[in-house]
Structure formats: structure tokens, C-alpha cells
């Protein structure tokens, strides 16, 4: 099970995620980001999209992944609630995401997220011992 904690940042909002695998950490960051925008438990997964992003490092990949979802949220008018990473390596991510149209959740909307930033971004995995634990941290501009 992944664990999501909000970071107190004066102007904006941040999240810290711990998960058993890197894939789950990336999925949980996306879940946490949309949780800032809507009561995510209400959002049904009727619509699905495939997402692919490339970057030079896990940190850049995480930021590109989240910013790609924000782009799709605004252009496709969708809120996403379920994230399934299909492939993930240091330079490439492929995922299938599920959601529903924003117009169906007018009563459940919170704040808009403008972007995921590179400020204090972290992706770390502890591969020693039996417990593989991955941690990710992102600050959003809201």
C-alpha cells in the first residue's frame, strides 16, 4: 500500500509518497495530485487514455508525467482517478489512465493545480533488504 502525505508549503502544496515499487510511487503521485483538485473517490473511471512521456531522469520523468496529466485534464476536460503504469524505465513511461468528464463533478471540485515543479523534487528507491521502498516528493504550483 502506498502512503501519501501532504507537505506544508507556504504558498503552494506538496506531497510525499512512499510505495513498495517505483511504478506505484508514480501512480500515487498522480492520484495525490488529482486529490488536490477533486473529491477523487467520487470520480468514476469511465474514460480511458494512454499516456507516454520521455525524460532524462526519474525526477524529470515524474514531473513530465504529472504535467502531461494536467495538460490532458484541461484539454480533454477530464479528471483522472485511476492510474496504471504499464512501462517505466529511467527515460520513458507508458501508462493507461482512467477518469471522467470534469463537468460531472462541479460540486466536488477543489483547487486548480497549475503545474508540477522541479523545486525539491525527489525520487528515491531503497533496494536493500526485503522491503523495496520508493519515495517521491513533488511541490505543485497551485
Amino acid at each position, binding site marked *: 500500500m502506498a502512503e501519501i502525505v501532504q507537505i506544508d*508549503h*507556504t504558498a503552494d502544496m506538496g506531497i510525499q509518497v512512499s510505495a513498495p515499487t517505483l511504478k506505484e510511487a508514480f501512480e500515487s503521485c498522480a492520484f495525490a495530485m488529482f486529490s488536490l483538485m477533486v473529491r477523487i473517490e467520487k470520480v468514476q473511471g469511465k474514460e480511458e487514455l494512454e499516456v507516454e512521456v520521455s525524460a532524462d531522469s526519474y525526477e*524529470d520523468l515524474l514531473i513530465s508525467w504529472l504535467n502531461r496529466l494536467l495538460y490532458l485534464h484541461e484539454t480533454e476536460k477530464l*479528471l483522472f482517478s485511476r492510474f496504471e503504469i504499464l512501462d517505466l524505465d529511467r527515460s520513458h513511461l507508458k501508462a493507461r489512465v482512467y477518469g471522467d468528464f470534469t463537468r460531472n463533478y462541479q460540486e466536488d471540485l477543489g*483547487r486548480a493545480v497549475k*503545474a508540477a515543479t*522541479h*523545486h525539491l523534487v525527489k525520487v528515491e528507491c531503497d533496494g536493500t533488504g526485503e522491503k523495496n521502498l520508493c519515495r517521491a516528493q513533488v511541490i505543485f*504550483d497551485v
Partner: protein
Amino acid sequence: MAKVKTLEKVDEYRWALPTSHKEGMRVHGMIYMDREMLEEMLEDQALEQVANVAFLPGIVRASLAMPDIHWGYGFPIGGVAATRVSDGVISPGGIGFDINCGVRLLRTNLTFEEAQPKLQDLVNLLFTYIPTGVGSTGKIKLSESAFRSVMTKGARWALEQGYGWSEDLDHLEEHGSLPLANPDVVSREAVKRGHDQLGTLGSGNHFAEVQVVEELYDLHAAEVLGLHKGQVTLLIHTGSRGFGHQIATDYIAVMGGATRKYGINIPDRQLACAPVTSEEGERYFGAMACAANFAWANRQAITHWAREAFEQVFKRSAESLGMHIVYDVAHNIAKFEEYEVDGRKEKLCIHRKGATRAFPPGHPELTLDYQSIGQPVLVPGDMGRYSFVMLGTKKAIEETFGSSCHGAGRQKSRSQAKREVKYKDLLDELGRKGIFIRASSRETVTEEAPVAYKDVERVVDVCHGAGISKKVAKLRPVGVIKG
């Protein structure tokens, strides 16, 4: 406070952060603040961010912090950095995601007594006419060619479509259109994201606020600005919406590569940058200017609908209601401006990240009617207290590259505000003060509660005391619409 000792007190309002604070700082930091505010500021990472900005190649004079400075992402919010165009860099993080987020003030000739009986109708109609909140889309759908015109013409495009009066442009910073905008360097993604967002307010700290002029500090200047005690005004705060966010996102990624390519040493990835005159630097400026122009067109369209809402409620034309624009300022932007550095004129790239241009009387950029008083600096506070109108000064040119504060500055995080503030209690409290609010999201309202912000009067008083702008009027909110 241990950290205060790392600062050198220059006078009551100025604190210097020496280059010895962090290896790699090219210039010192200069923080405009009183001692009490300074101690509050040292509780988060804003000071380190002032130091980090001082790493930027080509930075001159100092990494500046206005009194509303607080912890941002990369640059502090409330930061000003000037880099030499000849050998310095431009950093998208020094402008931010909401490019040309800014504030516009409209006046009316209504008194509060005249407006009060219809205030709720007015706020409700403003809320209907101006789309707000997460994912909101506007009434304007832009074709590809129209979008290119928005990018290059800014507010002038809106005017050509019938959104506004020809005199409006005279009272906008840059006349509502930043030169060097280049639509060819804007991504298809940015265009797709912005094509239905023109004329929308957005969410977060953006708002439109009906206000009353409560106090005047400079009667002559207020007269020139057309401001009188007891008069109703309207303040609009918004920016370039998803279009600007996407341009910033695109170019921060580009600048990550450029920082490596040009071998630039910066302590925070969000400060990624490129030489101003490099291909990457020029492309970013061209795209940034497109977003700045989108924001001016956005505020112009919103102005038009606000005028229509007033007309509908008060059954008089906007002209007869005297709904002139007092001024419109950008507070997240980069500009090329000339200043004297070490005894000679130098062309600089001024990054204002949560800071307002504050040009003095006689500045050639100002229109004739404001030549004698200087440029209006609009400083919004929180929704429960007040906002201020100030004016630019010669001292701002000498010290802060013609810059001043941009708002109250947050003192509590959003989650902290949400924990402490109950939505209903807040509405009751605002109601007792005679403030009526309409919002798309309860969460936004509680996060933006007055308690989350510093008292903007303290911020304004430091700017006034330090001489980097001067107080003219205090405006009290009576009706608010929010995202």
C-alpha cells in the same frame, strides 16, 4: 533568531544578505522588510531562495526581495532579479507558471450608498458573467489565426473584437501588449490548452472584487487617478491561465537541457536558465511574451463582462457609470529595461516574480495624465481586509529596478488555513463585515481566508517607508467572486 544574524541591517527597512552566506552567490541579497516581518519570513526557505537567485549568471546589483516575499518554488515569490542582456541569463522560474498574472483596477462614479442595495445582485451577476474555477472555459472560442493575433496584440486584440474602450489601452502596463511575442515558438499543446480559456478567472488566489475607497493618503494623486472616498471600484486579479502554465512547463524542460549545455551552475532545478541572447533564451522570451499578451487580452475580456454586469444591475451604461480603468499591472513577468549600473546605462532583463513595476513621475513609459504622479502600483490584500493603490518612485528606479511589492504574501500554508478555518464561520465573519462572496469551490475560499495572509498594510508601509513606492488609497472589499 539565529538566522537574523546572517543578515546585515542597513536601516529600518533594508537587510542585506552577504555573498558569504552561500558559496556561489554572485551578488548580495537585499530584503525590504521590518524586523518583525523578517523573523516571520525566516521560518521557511524564502531566504535560501534569495541566496539561490544570486547564483544566476549576469545578475547585477542584488537579488532583491520585496516585503511580501515568501517561499516559492525556485525563485521566492516577491523576488526581483536583473540580469545583463549582454552576458546574463533568463530563467522561466523567475517569471513563474502564471505568466503575467496581474491586477487591474476599474473605478466607477457610484457611491457605496448607491450600490449597496444591489450589491448581492451585482456579485451574483459578475459570478455568472465571468467563468471561474477548476477547468472553467470561456465564451470566446479562438480560431488558430485569432489565437495568433491574441499572442501578438494582447489587449488590443480584445479591443478590436469590441471588448472595451479605445482609451483602455493607455492605462495598461505596456499598453497591454509586450513586444517580441513570437507565436512560432509556442507549442501546439499550449495553444490547445488556451484556446477556450480566454475570458476566464481561474482558481486559487484569483478573484474579482467589488470595493469601496476607504481612505486617501495623497489627495492630489487620488484626484488624478479619479479616486474619491466612498466610491465603488472593481479589482480583477488573474493571468494567462493554462496557456501560460503550458508555456512555462515547456520551457522549463527546455532550460533544463540549456543549463547543462551552457555549463551553468544553479542550486535549484527550478532556476533552470539560458543566456538571454541564446536561441533557447530568445525562444523563451518570444513565447513568454505571447502568454503575457494572452493575459492582457484575458483581463480585457473580463473587464468587458464586468462592465456589462454593472450596466445590467444599475440600468445605466458603463460610460455613464464612469467605469474607467485606473491601471493594470503585471506581477509575474520579464522585461527588457535600461538602468544605470556602475555608472553606465545597461540593458537588463528584469525578472519580476510576484513583484510590480513601479515607475516614477516623468517616466517615458507613462501616459500623459500620469506623468505628474507616477505609475499606479496595485497591491491586493486578502478578501476580508483591504487592498492598496500606491505610486512608483525615483527611489525604486535607483534601488529596485523600478519594482515594488505585489500583495500581502501568504503566512500560512493552504492546508494549515484549511485546518483552522471553517467555511461557514468564514462566511459569517465576512458577512458581519458586509462582504458578500460567491465562489466555485469551498476549499478555495477557506484556503484563501484572511488569516492565511500577512496584513497587506504592513507590506505597503515598508514599501512606503523605504521609499520604493508611496501610498495613495486604501480599498475595502464588499463583494468577492472567486474560483
